[in-house]
């Protein structure tokens, strides 16, 4: 669906209206995953492996079952085999089958009449483990004698002799690398490492499941995609999808981490076995040990540059680990690594390696931050070596309309140059710095996504409109969807109410991911509104007894198309609604689409830091985000995405990391030692929204949710490098590492 031809003067889109779920959320009334209860409800709890890698020889649940109050105990034996291996991996992650594959891997679960009884029952489950050698780091998992995490999962396209832990081998690029490097005045090769980080949503996974003996099920859960949860759970429990209704609760953050299942199939299995509703809520410790995190990476980058700053060739080798299962995130890393550059010769290779860690879940722009960190750090180092302005070098090499991207497609209208120009013109870029201070910048990129989407609009008898959509609202999407419906219908925002339907009430919708909702659901909403407008015009044509084509829609009213159409007073939407029962019955608009044309998004971040030379502590002094939103539907929430992503990236750059001990156990499964940024760590995060319309959306909207987490990693690293005169090639840049770098 293309950008509208006519230049539109937006009335609702672009304003800062109140969100419909706001009052519920400031009064404590909003219901999240753990906030729902049911009569007769049991409490579930999960037993988790204390071993990083162990064969499960036997599980004896009899003592737990005998404990008063315990109503059900389940293990992997209580689930079906999944339809295909990707689904089976998702199930095996929820409940270990033959082996416990990481510290925290679920091995059994109980449902009991109280939380304390459920916890007590866990201690009565006897699991006989055969502890196996484990591996948690990429380098170690690639060694010839490394333990094989899962047999028979080696990539089919892997060359002979590739380690069995390598599950994916990918390659992108074009042009003659050798010739390109030969043309460079300076070529550097660097290796980079990034730690695994967690999405860190404040709401632990939680759900309430109820399965009846006739095979019907109800599931209430916090998820980014309840249709996908339904598909997976129905598969694992051998249910028809139509018999399982999933309702998405309010969701307390996801960032990609709630795009799959973790505990939902377990709660359903417990409920089925116990014959009662079961609530299951993860503890924070469980969230860290057994949900998320993102991949860790070890990457080699080689870039050649001329004396005047033109990149002649660029090459990347990315190695990601995404836990104990095959993980395709490295493909997105290899695709995005050089997306910001217009390159004649480029190649990005990638492999994924299995380790004894939890199964990776998507995390905001999955795969991109670590790849682009490595590339943007290398470009910055070249700029330093050649004495070039890093912003000018980005501009000189920037991808633009017509650029054949490093991952294949040729870009249409994109906002990178405009974003870089905005950064260059901003006072931040020219502000003076003091000793021990440094300024860093980085570009960022995300593909964005469209996907399967289904929206219904219902016209109520009083002329107000209900929008039914199927994507959980993570950051204000009900507001922006209502705005687009109101805009298209020409009615006030407060005459529209958007709800998120359960899986039984609306056709399939893809997960809330890929920054797709404002784009794809917005697009479908606009089309559904146009469908409703056509129907309303047809009703009015019937009343006026003229051709349907002779009725147009303007400012919330049906009007004659021109003097030739006849002389009729405009009919408002309320008037049309009031007599709908006499003109053919209820009026609804509907649209279903597998949307493409999402339109890629670029951002540029500028950051100033000061490093304490005696302690290695980094203080962020100033931060500015520049990003292309296509069209900012609700600018507050666009800014919020830009700020939130930036701060997650700051945490990744400075402090956040999964730390495993020699024993393969996670050492910091809590917010005390998994250190996400707190309010006092940060300055104001300034934002500059650019609007370069996306040719693939009627209003020009692009997704904005993910790009913002990409640039902070390199921006911070480049700033620290310039502040201390030494470069770290590893994240997080913790104070001990910075102090070490300062010592040389």
């Amino acid at each position, binding site marked *: 669906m293309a950008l509208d031809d006519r230049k539109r003067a937006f009335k609702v889109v672009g304003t800062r209206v109140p969100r419909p779920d706001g009052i519920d959320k400031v009064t404590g009334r909003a219901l999240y995953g753990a906030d729902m209860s049911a009569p007769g409800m049991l409490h579930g709890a999960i037993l988790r492996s204390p071993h990083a890698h162990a064969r499960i020889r036997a599980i004896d649940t009899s003592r737990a079952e005998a404990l008063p109050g315990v109503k059900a105990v389940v293990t992997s034996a209580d689930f079906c085999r999944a339809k295909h291996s990707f689904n089976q991996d998702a199930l095996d992650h929820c409940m270990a089958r033959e082996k416990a594959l990481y510290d925290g891997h679920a091995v059994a679960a109980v449902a009991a009449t109280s939380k304390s009884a459920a916890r007590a029952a866990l201690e009565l489950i006897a699991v006989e483990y055969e502890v196996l050698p484990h591996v948690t780091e990429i380098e170690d998992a690639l060694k010839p004698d490394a333990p094989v995490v899962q047999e028979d999962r080696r990539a089919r396209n892997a060359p002979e002799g590739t380690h069995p832990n390598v599950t994916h081998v990918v390659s992108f690029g074009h042009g003659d690398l050798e010739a390109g490097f030969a043309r460079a005045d300076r070529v550097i090769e660097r290796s980079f490492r990034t730690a695994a980080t967690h999405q860190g949503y404040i709401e632990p996974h939680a759900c309430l499941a109820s399965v009846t003996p006739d095979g019907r099920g109800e599931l209430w859960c916090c998820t980014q995609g309840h249709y996908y949860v339904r598909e997976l759970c129905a598969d694992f429990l051998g249910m028809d999808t139509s018999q399982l209704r999933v309702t998405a609760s309010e969701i307390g953050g996801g960032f990609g981490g709630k795009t799959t299942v973790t505990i939902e199939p377990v709660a359903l299995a417990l409920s089925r076995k116990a014959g009662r509703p079961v609530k299951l809520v993860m503890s924070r410790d469980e969230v860290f040990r057994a949900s998320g995190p993102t991949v860790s990476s070890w990457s080699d980058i080689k870039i050649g540059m001329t004396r005047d700053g033109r990149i002649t060739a660029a090459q990347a080798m990315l190695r990601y680990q995404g836990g104990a299962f095959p993980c395709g995130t490295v493909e997105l890393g290899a695709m995005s690594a050089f997306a910001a550059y217009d390159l004649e010769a480029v190649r990005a290779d990638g492999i994924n390696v299995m380790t004894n860690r939890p199964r990776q879940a998507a995390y905001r722009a999955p795969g991109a931050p670590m790849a682009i960190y490595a590339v943007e750090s290398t470009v910055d180092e070249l700029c330093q070596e050649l004495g070039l302005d890093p912003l000018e070098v980005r501009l000189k090499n920037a991808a633009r309309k017509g650029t054949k991207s490093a991952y294949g497609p040729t870009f249409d209208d994109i906002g990178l140059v405009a974003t870089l120009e905005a950064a260059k013109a901003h006072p931040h870029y020219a502000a003076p710095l003091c000793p021990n201070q440094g300024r860093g910048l980085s570009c960022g990129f995300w593909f964005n996504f469209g996907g399967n989407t289904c929206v219904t609009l219902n016209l109520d008898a009083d002329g107000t409109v209900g929008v039914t959509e199927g994507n959980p609202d993570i950051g204000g999407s009900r507001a922006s969807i209502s705005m687009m419906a109101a805009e298209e219908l020409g009615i006030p925002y407060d005459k529209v109410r958007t709800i998120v339907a359960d899986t039984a009430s609306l056709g399939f919708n893809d997960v809330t991911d890929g920054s797709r909702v404002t784009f794809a659901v917005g697009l479908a909403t606009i089309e559904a509104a146009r469908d409703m407008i056509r129907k309303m015009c047809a009703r009015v044509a019937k009343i006026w007894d003229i051709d349907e084509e002779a009725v147009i829609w303007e400012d919330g009213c049906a009007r004659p198309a021109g003097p030739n159409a006849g002389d009729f007073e405009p009919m408002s939407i309320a008037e049309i609604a009031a007599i709908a029962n006499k003109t053919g019955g209820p009026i609804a608009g509907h649209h279903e689409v597998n949307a493409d044309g999402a339109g890629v998004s670029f951002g540029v971040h500028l950051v100033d830091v000061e490093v304490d030379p005696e302690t290695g502590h980094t203080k962020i002094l100033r931060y500015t985000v520049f990003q292309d939103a296509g069209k900012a539907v609700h600018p507050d929430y666009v800014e919020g995405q830009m700020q939130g992503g930036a701060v997650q990236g700051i945490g990744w750059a*400075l402090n956040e990391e999964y730390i495993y001990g020699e024993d393969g156990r996670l050492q910091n499964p809590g917010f005390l*030692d998994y250190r996400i940024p*707190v309010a006092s760590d940060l300055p104001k995060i300034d934002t500059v929204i650019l609007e370069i319309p996306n040719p693939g959306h009627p209003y020009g909207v692009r997704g904005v949710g993910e790009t913002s987490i990409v640039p902070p990693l390199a921006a911070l690293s480049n700033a620290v490098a310039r502040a201390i005169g030494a470069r770290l090639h590893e994240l997080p840049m*913790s104070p*001990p590492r910075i102090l070490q770098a300062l010592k040389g």
Partner: protein
Amino acid sequence: MQFAAPRSASEAAALLQAEPGDARVLAGGSDLLVQMKSGALRPDLLVDIKRIPGLDAITAEDGGFRLGAAVPGARLGEHAGVRALWPGVVEAVELIGSTQVQGRATVAGNLCNASPAADAVPALVAADAVARVFGPRGERDCPVSDIPVGPGRNSLAKGEFVASILLPARPKRAADAYLRFIPRTEMDIAVASAGVSLVLDEDGRCTRARIALGAVGPKVLLAEEAAHCLIGTKLEDAALAAMAEACSALASPIDDKRGTVAFRKQVVGVLAKRAAKIAQDRAGGTK
């Protein structure tokens, strides 16, 4: 598990003494409840001491202040007298956890938990504070540095609990300061820390110094050699450098998820140096 909220110290001591299993004192609970949640502790009896009259009071005593064991950290910061007399102790206590934790966590609890990284403890040791221990056989006073004996272990006998802590009086031209290093700006456990208490003469020369280091040994370390480096000086750069070096030399930290040995040894000296300057400034020694 049983819960008791006795109304007198002797009743509390009797309950703690009589419990055959694991009996725990509940003051602020900000450490105890976390350990219970993780399963690390499963007490048979919790004795809430917050309803014992007097234990929630800060009282002036002989020119100093006695802090009841049930006084939450936030109350210290609100007490102008304590702030003025022992600003370093107050700033140490105010660094424990969040505002929310400040509303609960007590100085006595921070001491008795015996974490090597406890923020209040180096400041209390530098201040020469004295714990009043109440037990089945009555009261006894004990230097705070003798309460913790190792990570998570204290010297209290069965039935005993710390009822109050005395921050002593101090002469003119004296002050203290506390600094810790954490990766963020709040909410972390100290990676290294230093409490410094100084007394200056009329010329601004240091006549007495106590320096205590945290998170660089199994328990708080009293850095006597380092303190000696300051005696007779006006904290000139050379004296401070020698003091910092002595602190680093004394430190015997471990590598863990929060920091490395090398980092802790270096940074503890930096912190001691900076804290000494702040204490000197507070004591009027830089005017």
